[in-house]
């Protein structure tokens, strides 16, 4: 008995065991709810502005519609055997102990209603199979707990049937949107992209001015005229990157890295002010219609600018949409050059150049960093890079190892396909959800603390705009510097040696010591 119960762990996620579980605390997070969207945010996306009168009927009807039109939703609702294999796999459960954050329990919030209205057993024997009526309390639970899922798919990897809670969360948010219960953060942002082209509401003029400033910075740094072209007709490559790359730290250093790589390759490229956003929050709210609208902006930009290729910058969920959905929702892209992947990831592009010996690096430029890599969930579990399965894990690591000397991986159960979410994905990156964001990030942050302790790791690299923003916020909470989070192309940018570049800091290299955070660092770099 004791043996079988052995995984009733109660140690709480810690440096020694980042994926340990806390005591189960029912309703610990029931009060965590994001702000409701204002009526015009909802109507703009084609949803009712406020909770409609006949919301129960509408919600059930929408549920039935999804079950008929989405195989994943239908099969996942029917198939779960309640084996419990996923119950200890969600970072929000590890961080909060609220049982409704266990993936299967999160699904059950919706499944129990589905059973009640759509299955024989639930209609006639509701108590027996745990079916419940749709009530205001149930709706409130949906709103709380489907906004405590970052749609990271970690649970799906471990489920014997691949049941993906992200799919259920998306459906639940779609159902809620259809009865007028939208989430402010996501819906407002989707509206902004529709109006202006990006999540920030940065218009064409402001974008051009910002890029000109960046070009000046690049020239100051290298003495070279490195361009970041905007709306350049006839360019070969259209770069679609998260708008955070245009202004936030450390994102912007990544953008400068892309520019240097393009410069070194002699590529002709441009960003578009019309499609100046890689992220697609339409996916977060499970709305295929809105996802498609944003995807088609990218297609239109590519057609209007007459480019031959599309490359995506560092962004997790964006890459999922680009890699898996773009072709379906906005394709076929037969007007692009078919000799290149459509779309391509910037890391695939850079790694290809490295493999073909087209780039030169001075790795010692990154010696002040001892780095580890955070596999962004949606890159890891919902996309690929290169032509072999798992390229999404190897290519970023290969690039990092090509540009810096000190690289260490975090513990196995927290990386690659088992990677832990940053805690802010899936539409949770908003201040009104700060508590759950922090709890959700704790397993990842403890894994980072472990490699800090064991190998003296000082910095973590991410390739997702959300991850970077989230970690910049979380780092200080866990005893790290705010700037301990880096962009992958930031390290590329530091190390790349461009032809004809001036080198200002030739002589102050030696006194760069690794900056340690807190605990002593004894890693020997091997």
């Amino acid at each position, binding site marked *: 008995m004791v043996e*079988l*119960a052995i*995984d*009733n762990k109660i140690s709480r996620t810690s440096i020694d065991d980042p994926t340990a579980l806390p005591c*189960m605390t029912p309703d610990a997070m029931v009060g965590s709810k994001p702000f409701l969207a204002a009526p015009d945010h909802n109507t703009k996306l084609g949803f009712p502005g406020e909770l409609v009168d006949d919301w129960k009927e509408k919600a059930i009807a929408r549920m039935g519609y999804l*079950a*008929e*039109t*989405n*195989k*994943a939703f*239908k*099969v996942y609702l*029917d*198939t*779960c*055997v*309640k*084996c*419990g*294999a*996923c119950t*200890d796999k969600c970072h929000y459960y590890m961080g909060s102990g609220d*049982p409704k954050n*266990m993936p299967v*329990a999160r699904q059950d919030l919706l499944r129990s209603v589905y059973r009640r209205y759509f*299955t024989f*057993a639930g209609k006639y*024997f509701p108590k*027996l*199979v*745990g079916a419940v009526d749709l009530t205001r309390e149930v709706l409130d639970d949906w709103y709380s707990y489907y906004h405590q899922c970052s749609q990271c*798919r970690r649970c*799906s990897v*471990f*489920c*014997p*049937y*691949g049941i*993906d809670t992200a799919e259920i969360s998306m459906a639940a948010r779609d159902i809620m949107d259809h009865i007028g219960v939208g989430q402010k953060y996501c819906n407002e942002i989707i509206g902004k992209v529709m109006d202006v082209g990006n999540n920030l509401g940065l218009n064409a003029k402001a974008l051009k001015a910002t890029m000109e400033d960046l070009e000046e910075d690049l020239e100051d740094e290298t003495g070279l005229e490195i361009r970041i072209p905007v709306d350049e007709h006839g360019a070969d490559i259209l770069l679609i990157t998260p708008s955070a790359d245009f202004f936030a730290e450390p994102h912007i250093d990544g953008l400068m890295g892309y520019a240097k790589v393009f410069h070194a390759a002699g590529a002709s490229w441009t960003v578009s002010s019309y499609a100046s956003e890689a992220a697609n929050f339409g996916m977060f709210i499970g709305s*295929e*219609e809105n996802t*498609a609208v944003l995807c088609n902006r990218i297609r239109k930009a590519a057609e209007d600018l007459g480019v031959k290729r599309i490359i995506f910058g560092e962004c997790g969920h964006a890459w999922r949409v680009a*890699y898996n*959905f773009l*072709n*379906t*929702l906005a*394709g*076929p892209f037969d007007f692009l050059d078919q000799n290149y992947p*459509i779309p391509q990831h910037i890391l695939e592009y850079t790694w290809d150049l490295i493999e073909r010996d087209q780039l030169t690096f001075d790795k010692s430029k990154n010696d002040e960093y001892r780095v580890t890599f955070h596999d962004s969930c949606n890159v*890891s*579990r*919902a996309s*690929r890079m290169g*032509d*072999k*399965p*798992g390229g999404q894990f190897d290519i970023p690591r290969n690039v990092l190892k090509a540009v810096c000397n000190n690289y260490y991986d975090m513990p196995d159960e927290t990386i690659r*396909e088992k990677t832990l979410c940053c805690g802010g994905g899936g539409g949770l990156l908003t201040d009104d959800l700060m508590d759950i964001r922090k709890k959700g990030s704790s397993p990842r942050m403890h894994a980072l603390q472990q490699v800090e302790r064991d190998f003296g790791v000082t910095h973590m690299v991410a390739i997702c705009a959300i991850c970077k923003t989230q970690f910049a916020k979380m780092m200080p909470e866990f005893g790290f510097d705010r700037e301990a989070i880096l962009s992958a192309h930031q390290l590329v940018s530091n190390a790349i040696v461009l032809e004809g570049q001036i080198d200002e800091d030739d002589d102050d290299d030696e006194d760069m010591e690794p900056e340690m955070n807190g605990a002593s660092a004894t890693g020997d770099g091997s």
Partner: protein
Amino acid sequence: MISTLYALLFYVATFLLVAGVSQKIWIYWRTPSPLKVVVTPAPTTNTGVVLRMAREVVLFESLFKSNKWIWVFGWMFHFGLLLVLIRHLRYFTNPVWWWVSLLQTVGIYAGFAMFLGLTGLLIRRIVVNRVRYISAPSDYLMLLLLMAIGFSGLMMRFVLPTDIVAVKTFFLGLLRFNLQPLPMDLPVLVHLGLVVVLMIIFPISKLLHVPGLFFSPSRTQADNAREKRHVGAAPAGR
């Protein structure tokens, strides 16, 4: 009288099982996958997908990665069940297929393995607080039902032997629509009655994981979105 009732029950249960599962398979088959939602890393070819699915079905690969206790008990139960089912073919075939006779002895141990596995799963469901939290009464009852079937079966074999030849005659008769009497022993009647219940609830319970597994898009899709445009039927709403 009771024999006729059981014969009738078996016909009805078989019909419900076949019709119910076929209908579900038809629904799963027909429901579109609007988007590519495969969980990666995943095979890039259809052959790769078949291999991945074979590993899931035979080895419970993901479950192995996930939780060794559930895997051990789950695998014992399912492979015990498989062997037991194969062993049962001898009641429906005359002459008995050679490979079925070959498995007779193993089949007995399989019965114990199955029972043990189910017991382990039940204990877990009760003692692990996370699993207890997600369990509905039906989840316990399903395990108890299968355990009762296994237990009554083992009783017949080891404690209260029944007239196996008569049982076989009954089932061969069913197949030929020629009614034959069942031995009136309690274990036989309980065993067969519970099997009828299992067959009837199969298509309306979580036993749908059997067809469902083969239609789970996160596993059955190939990772080839860039190479081959995925065209799932778009939602009619657009």
